[in-house]
């Protein structure tokens, strides 16, 4: 079996096991939509703030589910990988001719697939709610590409946590920390409208702000080269760091095995 075939098989397994757990499918689809509805409803009047960059708060906030969904996918994928370790599946797999790169790529292939499905769902809900992408159809394609890259980047962090700790609970423990990154960002207001200095500084230092702003630019601005370059740059960087760390953790774990 070639490495590509091994990767495809493990990716298929990753997707199928996610689909077999309805809670893992429904929660990442519905929870971000619920938070979007609540925030967009409650903060609708923020549109009246001088300098607010969109006519509709819903369109402004639509970027957030793409990042939140990636966090969910990461947790699910990391937890599944940790379960493989806890149940001994990884040990049995290591006795087969499977290449370690195929394990990582297969696992992340599953994350990317789920992430893409989620992104299509969020985009569909946004369009159905009357949001029109300023960047047009090409922008929608770029948005899905960016959302997929973000899912891959966060997925690699989840894989690292799973391989390093071998514990599903430890991976779940990452979720609040990632949620902090989401909330201490420009998710609810543009950075220039955040009044409290330390919060604005924290949001500026927080890479998640740039991921959100990249997605948001495609929805409410059009083609903002700087926002897109930062978003793709940060997603790519997080992905490289995560993949490097996960590869190292896998090597260490297989050596132990």
């Amino acid at each position, binding site marked *: 079996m070639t490495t590509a075939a091994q990767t495809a098989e493990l990716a298929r397994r990753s997707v199928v096991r996610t689909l077999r757990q309805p809670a893992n499918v429904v929660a990442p689809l519905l929870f971000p939509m*619920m938070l979007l509805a*609540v925030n967009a409803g*409650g*903060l609708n009047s923020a549109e009246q*703030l001088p300098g607010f960059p969109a006519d509709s708060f819903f369109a402004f906030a639509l970027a957030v589910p793409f990042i939140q969904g990636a966090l969910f996918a990461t947790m699910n994928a990391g937890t599944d990988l940790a379960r493989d370790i806890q149940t001994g599946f990884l040990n049995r797999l290591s006795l087969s001719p499977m290449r370690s790169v195929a394990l990582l790529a297969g696992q992340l292939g599953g994350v990317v697939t789920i992430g893409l499905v989620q992104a299509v769902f969020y985009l569909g809900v946004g369009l159905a709610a009357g949001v029109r992408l300023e960047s047009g159809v090409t922008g929608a394609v770029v948005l899905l590409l960016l959302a997929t890259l973000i899912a891959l980047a966060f997925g690699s962090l989840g894989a690292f946590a799973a391989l390093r700790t071998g514990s599903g609970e430890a991976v779940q423990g990452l979720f609040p920390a990632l949620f902090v990154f989401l909330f201490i960002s420009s998710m609810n207001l543009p950075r220039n409208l955040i*009044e*409290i200095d330390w*919060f604005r500084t924290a949001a500026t230092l927080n890479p998640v702000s740039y991921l959100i702003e990249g997605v948001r630019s495609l929805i409410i601005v059009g083609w903002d080269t700087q926002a897109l370059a930062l978003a793709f740059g940060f997603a790519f960087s997080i992905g490289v760091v995560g993949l490097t760390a996960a590869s190292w953790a896998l090597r260490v774990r297989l050596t132990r095995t």
Partner: protein
Amino acid sequence: MRGIVAVALAVAWRAIHNVFTNPALLIPSIVFPLFFFTAFAGGLSRVSDVPGFDYGPGYTGFQFVFVLLQSAAFGGVFTGFGIARDFESGFARRLLLAAPRRSGIVLGYSLAALVRWLTTASVLTVVAVVAGMNIGGGPVDLFGLYGLALIVNAAATLWAAGVAMRLRTMQAGPVMQMPVFLILFFAPVYVPIDLLQGWIEAIASINPVTALLEAGRSLLAGEPEHVALAFGVAVALAAAFALWAVRGLRRAEAAGA
């Protein structure tokens, strides 16, 4: 009566001991409200510039009341998780066998939830004051505000206890948590109800939590409004959920836990 008190104190002591000796249980219940307070009061303070927003103590105080009530409600829900865990582990079965007056079990868990929330509320209040929250109300107003939150805590605990005793599994967590989350966020969280529009305004206007929030905010500002209504709503919720919890206890007894 003495039997109920003895059972309640024993159950409360055990639940409190469990929480305060286990950082994994204690820290989230303290950190999450602080985190929400930071994210909302820090990140959204500019919302107070929206035309029509007129709240004396400022946006920090506006959000403090929401987070105080939210911490009270979630303190109760977290206690419900503990009850479900006790049923899953088999401890509750032994408790039901040993307790001479079983309604003391519900009372005991409620006492434990109260102690747990008082800890969270103390930390939250100190942080809010240090962050520069303005307080317009006098001691009587503040007593009313914390009294209101205390009844909310009792109501949420009784709700979660009723669910936990019916389903008797940790998987019931979302059933306890999600309705509380929704009812809290479908209230005027970010702006006063007058500034809400559309569907969220329609829901918030019939949501009982709106009365609690508005009265709580008026007490913090020192301009009490609709306080009797809010206490009436809170007491009615607590009474209804007390019945729900006791009937849940009877179900658990009938099922042999």
